[in-house]
């Protein structure tokens, strides 16, 4: 593939993208000079903690929001100057928002959105049936929107996101708050849409398993900046080491673990709480066994008991930890 082919295959191109918001607390920089390219047929993940800038990027690319500076193009059209041309070839869905009129059936809602794209009614109904079947929604299409469960409302949202046969689809946390089985079927659906129809899917998420499962490439984003961008496997390989996982008790407060980050050979750490067992799980990205030993000792000195510890293959969160020095949970706590 020569450079021209690569250029033709790029469906989303972002250069120096910056977005700043004025708030009561002052200026907030949501995106700080983002550069990124997404190719045709790719499921591209944008992974980061809450407040990292993922949703802002999707809002800009889907023409809901203008950038403060920089350039963003979708299918070669500029988001600032040619929003209508972009709107004709994209769609978008957010997991946190399930758009629909409560007193209209799922089918009625989907038909309404299809009409906004000028799809002939018969063709629209055909597409609604086909897409719904793929998501197991076909038996619920004639129920009023309000009567659907969260999972089925989300399926309606995802059918809507593909109703206009879009070339690029922006999905913002599409499986948030859903049970495992529903999330799995939605991931399969997304993959199928990319593979079978050559659609570009830009998936913003903080779910690492989701990125690992379906994304061809992923950009790790924090505080409005892209820290790394590659395939999930390549990103994990860059760590070059497995991570140390410790189950400790009692559960430490968020700030209590900060000394860990200052130990020699420690690239960063993150923690989560297992409420059922009253434990905290700490994942530490370390360079070498000596650093691992010093982590265990430091935790003991903090007054915690190490219930068990082991090494595991690096995950994307540990890649994030290695890049930032903190996990998603700590990052969200810092910014809240």
């Amino acid at each position, binding site marked *: 593939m020569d450079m021209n082919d690569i250029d033709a295959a790029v469906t989303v191109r972002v250069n120096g993208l910056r977005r700043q918001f004025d708030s009561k607390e002052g200026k907030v920089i949501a995106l700080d000079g983002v550069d990124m390219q997404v190719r045709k047929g790719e499921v591209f993940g944008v992974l980061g903690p809450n407040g990292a800038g993922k949703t802002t990027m999707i809002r800009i690319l889907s023409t*809901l929001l203008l950038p403060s500076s920089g350039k963003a193009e979708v299918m070669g059209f500029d988001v600032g100057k040619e929003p209508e041309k972009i709107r004709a070839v994209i769609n978008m869905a957010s997991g946190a928002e*399930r758009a*629909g*009129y409560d007193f209209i059936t799922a089918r009625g809602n989907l038909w309404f959105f299809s*009409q906004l794209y000028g799809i002939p009614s018969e063709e629209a109904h055909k597409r609604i049936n086909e897409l719904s079947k793929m998501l197991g929604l076909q038996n619920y299409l004639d129920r009023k929107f309000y009567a659907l469960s969260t999972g089925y409302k989300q399926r309606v949202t995802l059918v809507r996101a593909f109703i206009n046969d879009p070339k690029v689809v922006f999905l913002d946390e599409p499986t948030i708050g859903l049970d495992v089985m529903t999330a799995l079927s939605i991931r399969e659906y997304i993959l199928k849409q990319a593979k079978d129809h050559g659609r570009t899917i830009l998936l913003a998420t903080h779910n690492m398993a989701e990125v690992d499962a379906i994304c061809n490439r992923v950009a790790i984003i924090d505080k409005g900046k892209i820290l790394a961008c590659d395939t999930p496997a390549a990103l994990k390989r860059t760590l070059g080491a497995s991570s140390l996982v410790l189950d400790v008790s009692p559960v430490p407060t968020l700030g209590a673990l900060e000394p860990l980050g200052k130990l020699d050979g420690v690239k960063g750490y993150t923690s989560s709480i297992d409420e059922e067992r009253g434990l905290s799980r700490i994942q530490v990205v370390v360079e070498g066994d000596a650093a691992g030993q010093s982590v265990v000792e430091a935790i003991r000195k903090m007054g915690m008991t190490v219930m068990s510890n082991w090494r595991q293959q690096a995950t994307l969160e540990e890649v994030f930890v290695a890049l930032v020095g903190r996990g998603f949970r700590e990052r969200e706590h810092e910014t809240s």
Partner: protein
Amino acid sequence: MSLRAIAASIRVGWAREFNWTNPLAGFTLRTVGPLASVIAASAVYYVASVHNIPPSFDPSMLAYIIIGAALYTHVAAYSWVPTLAIAEGKWTYVFPQVYIAPHSSLPYLIGRTLASFASSTMTVIVSLILSFYALSSIIGTGIPFIVTPVSVSLLILAMVVNIFAAFGLGLLLSAYALFATKFEWALPTYVAGLLMIFSEALFPVSLLPHPVSDIANVLPFTEFMRASRYAMIYGDIPSYSLYLGLSVLGGLIFLGLGYAAFKYAENRARRLGVIDKKTA
């Protein structure tokens, strides 16, 4: 401008108005409002005029009030629909999805307005008929309405023509609703209150102090009220035509202003990032 998008929005708007209950209950409840307004305004006039010294009750003035009150509730009911469509659309996330569909926000607002216009026209006509018979029998005197195919057609034509002005007003209000997170639900109520005073709904605007009366005198809603009364009470076609023409002219000006304000607000809202924002 997509006719398909307008037609779908009419259908959705209609369902939004009536799908929450069965059609008969929905229609009945929607008729109660305008009917109550007409009867309340007429009752106030009747009681005040018969107890005046000397009594000054005038059946043609009662007809004037019935027409004004009914048409005022009609305009108030559907002119705020664009604002409603945006305010509720932000909460349900329907509006951001409409916005990112190509060239769709305006057809969507037009469709929603037309659906409301149709339902409100039906309820207002029923209110006019019911209040006419109810008040005639209670007061025991005839109310001088001209009810012929021509007069009713002229009234309906005036109502249709007034869509320009009402939609223009709706766009002006929705321009605010696009980037507002406060008062967007209440604003149309305030404006409807002003409309009652300034549109000759219940009394001639010449009774207002200058220069307010001059402004009210050229509002398309005032011309619409006058045209409707010339059709239904005075039977004066030349005067009807004059006021209908003025109503069209004013309506187009309102529509132009509303469109410009809405487009400006759309761009500003996109710059501020509030098109999909629910709270401040």
